[in-house]
């Protein structure tokens, strides 16, 4: 720990630290077109965001109810099947009853005809529109994206979706929003085709949770997060187990290696020259 080494270390740390900081500031500089990036969302305390945090399944259940009532009118959820909800947010009987409320085209039957039948657990979530063209035609040319993976498919994740849904406001003075679009500072560009759909009391919760707009949005965002990452609970549990086991094994391996090498590393090799080593012949 000489003065030279300390000085060297401090110089390197200063160089690297200032270099990293200046690079970061350069990449994230304020500029005139930040509206194109969208306002950066705040950091919301979703429990599943924490390093070892998992989903609140009661919230997933309320969120699916919100999705069914409000969002499924325009948004599809193609990658989620009724069976995915079983033992996650609803019991098997409840899910069968919910699925049976919808009609699905099946067939052909023995006559060769297609027929309609009530939904089963194996069916996917019902689509609001048959295809993208129909969706665009019904929404003034804008396509309501499929929400199965939306929290993974958008920069900002759950924070962005939550801020977007609660972030509708009047545009600032001088900003004109095209007819048919709505101002939302979090949406890149500022003008989003979707109108605000979540207001206080727009949905009633069966478990009596107060249905403020913030609560409704929090629950639907949790549901969408689950739809995109259904494996999160198991992944984090297995992750903690893996960290515990591997760190123990690593420490064990390091200790055993040092133990076995001790004999070699502490040996002394001594050369005892004969008495007449330096004697000239």
């Amino acid at each position, binding site marked *: 720990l000489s003065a030279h080494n300390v000085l060297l270390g401090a110089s390197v740390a200063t160089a690297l630290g200032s270099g990293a900081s200046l690079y970061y500031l350069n990449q994230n500089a304020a500029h005139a077109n930040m509206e194109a990036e969208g306002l950066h969302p705040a950091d919301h305390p979703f*429990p599943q965001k924490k390093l070892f945090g*998992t*989903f*609140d*399944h*009661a919230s997933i*259940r309320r969120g699916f109810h919100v999705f069914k009532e409000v969002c499924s009118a325009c948004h599809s959820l193609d990658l989620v099947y009724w069976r995915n909800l079983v*033992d*996650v*947010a*609803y*019991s098997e*009987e*409840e899910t069968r009853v919910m699925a049976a409320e919808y009609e699905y085209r099946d067939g052909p039957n023995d006559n060769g005809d297609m027929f309609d039948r009530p939904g089963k657990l194996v069916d996917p979530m019902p689509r609001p529109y048959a295809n993208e063209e129909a969706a665009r035609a019904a929404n003034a040319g804008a396509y309501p994206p499929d929400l199965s993976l939306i929290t993974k498919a958008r920069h900002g994740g759950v924070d962005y979706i939550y801020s977007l849904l609660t972030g509708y406001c009047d545009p600032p003075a001088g900003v004109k929003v095209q007819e048919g679009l709505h101002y939302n500072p979090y949406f890149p560009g500022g003008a989003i085709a979707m109108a605000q759909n979540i207001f206080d009391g727009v949905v009633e919760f069966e*478990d009596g949770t107060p249905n403020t707009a913030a609560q409704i949005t929090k629950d639907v965002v949790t549901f969408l997060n689950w739809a995109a990452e259904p494996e999160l*609970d198991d992944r984090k*549990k297995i992750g*903690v*187990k893996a960290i*515990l*086991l591997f760190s123990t094994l690593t420490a064990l391996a390091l200790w055993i290696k040092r133990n076995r090498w001790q004999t070699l590393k502490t040996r002394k090799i001594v050369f005892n020259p004969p008495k007449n080593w330096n004697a000239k012949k």
Partner: protein
Amino acid sequence: MVGYFTRAVSSFTYRNFFKKESTYFTAIVVTGVGFSIVFNTAFDKYWNNKTAGTKWVDIKDRYVQN
């Protein structure tokens, strides 16, 4: 306590488990299975306690009709 019996324990383990490959392998498998059962049971109990009230199994009694 372990330090006092280190030589005896080591000799016993070596002579009865490590000398023959068949006993060595059996010891490894038994230790592995045993550790796996103990570790998983203990960890699952801790994890379920830590996530109490958030999982489906915790809330299903409100909705399932038996």
